[in-house]
């Protein structure tokens, strides 16, 4: 997850099963010596990663990134993007946008009174939003990026 994760809590928790996924034990513990913590009373809390990432289920979609022009925003080829259609496409946000009927990903930047579609890779020149045949599909809220060993 690229968004701010919560600080690791001294709890061992079990992730609630996601539909279609197996149960993944989520280890959030710091090993401590000494007396048992009072927090141990709260063992067996179910943490559902889906709840953390998906704020509005009916409006949230997962899409697959293809290409590397948004590396600067932490989006790699093959990453899964969490897209919330209910959020406003404000400047600074990363959006899925259909340009000439093709969905792509860009960051919205407000500059000199106009909104630009910007890729984080400097090889791609910014495009002014006005005048381009496009409509915003949704706002990217999180990136699911697998590190070596993490691929499904």
């Amino acid at each position, binding site marked *: 997850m690229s968004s701010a994760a919560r600080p690791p809590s001294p709890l061992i928790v079990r992730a609630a099963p996601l539909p279609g996924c197996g149960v993944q034990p989520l280890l959030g513990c710091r090993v401590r010596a000494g007396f048992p913590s009072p927090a141990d009373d709260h063992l067996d809390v179910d943490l559902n990663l889906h709840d953390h990432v998906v704020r509005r289920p*009916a*409006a949230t979609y997962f899409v*697959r990134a*293809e290409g590397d022009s948004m590396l600067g925003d932490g989006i790699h080829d093959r990453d899964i993007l969490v897209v919330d259609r*209910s959020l406003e496409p404000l400047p600074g946000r990363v959006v899925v946008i259909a340009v000439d*009927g093709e*969905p*792509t990903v860009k960051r919205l930047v407000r500059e000199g009174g106009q909104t630009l579609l910007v890729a984080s890779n400097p090889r791609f020149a910014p495009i002014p939003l006005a005048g381009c045949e496009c409509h915003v599909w949704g706002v990217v809220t999180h990136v699911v990026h697998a590190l070596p060993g993490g691929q499904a």
Partner: protein
Amino acid sequence: MIALIDANSFYVSCERVFAPRLEGRPVGVLSNNDGCIVARSEELKALGVAMGAPRHLLPPAIRRQAVLLSSNYALYGDMSRRVNAILAEFSPDVEVYSIDESFVGFGGFDPAAVEGHCHRLRETVRRDTGIPVGVGVAPTRVLAKVANRAAKRMPAYEGVCRLDAEAPATRALLERLPATAVWGVARRTGERLALMGIHTAWQLREADPERIRRAFSVVLERIVWELRGHPAIALEDLGEARQRLMVSRSFSRLTGERDELAAALRQHGAQAAEKLRRQGSLARAVLVFVRTNPFLRDEPQYANRRVVPLARPSDDSREILAAAQRGLAAIHREGYRYQKCGVMLLDLVDRERRQLSLLEATQGEAARQCSDRLMAVVDRLNREMGRDTVRFGLPRDNSAWRLRCERLTSRYTTRWDELMRVRIG
């Protein structure tokens, strides 16, 4: 007040959300197994392509221009679930009428605020799902249907049309509406009404309810009351929406037992299949839905639905029940107490039309006749010796059937390996 929310060309709209390039083009959705048109975009309608037209009989010029897709029931079922989840945010009183139509009750809401509420509802559905819907609001279901039709056809309403029983605008609309366009008025009824001098919806509304009941039926009398703005019709009395047939029921008490749900769905499915055979239709897909009681605020809430396509258009109870059980397996969750479940048969086709189909999944003539004879015997036994004389156990899932779905789009919202791809770069 009650609202009817109806998606525009629902299957096509679902496809367009994930393939924006289809916007503005003539798009049709084909049934997977017999290659007949089951949904059309406005552009395809404008080309003169009829509902139910077999693909192989379309003129080559149209086949070249149009984008024809296999039906992606996994996607349509999920998008339908999302739309309904949003409706439930606007009122706890949501009744599923078909995969793309729902009634939303606004009892207890300030009537003056309902219209604004409906505009927000429509915009939220559009924003969150990309699906355009029309909203008709009125004091009764029959008037809500009239309002819905106006909302979709007349751009001035901007997608939301409110009809009050006594408003001049309502009268103007009803005077222009043929009586046969009123919900529940069949064409033959219309012919007999015409003999009585009743041609328009307004004339039907002004007719003497007593006289209508004697000449026709209690249901038509209720329609007269509904046109006058007095609620008289329950959802079950409304007859069937186009192209679908539903059996659903609330449990007498809430249940969390999967077996109870399965048994109820088996009964609903068998009943729906019997209705299907009685009206001489075949279904192409089976929708299963379950939900908890949304009025119990303290209970954990869950509602879901799943569409399971059939291997070929069918009226065989065994095939329909097997599909229903597969649907239940996919959506049943432990930890909830369910209030209602139901089975809906979708994308119906005339039984007589089956012979036209060239692309149908293979089923030997002998097997088909065997199925027909078996079902006829079951129906006769149940008719003559009483309902449920013959019931169906749990049919075995016949996974050997393969669907023909060459033009199938991705299951964008239900499969990790089929997510929408966004090209970056």
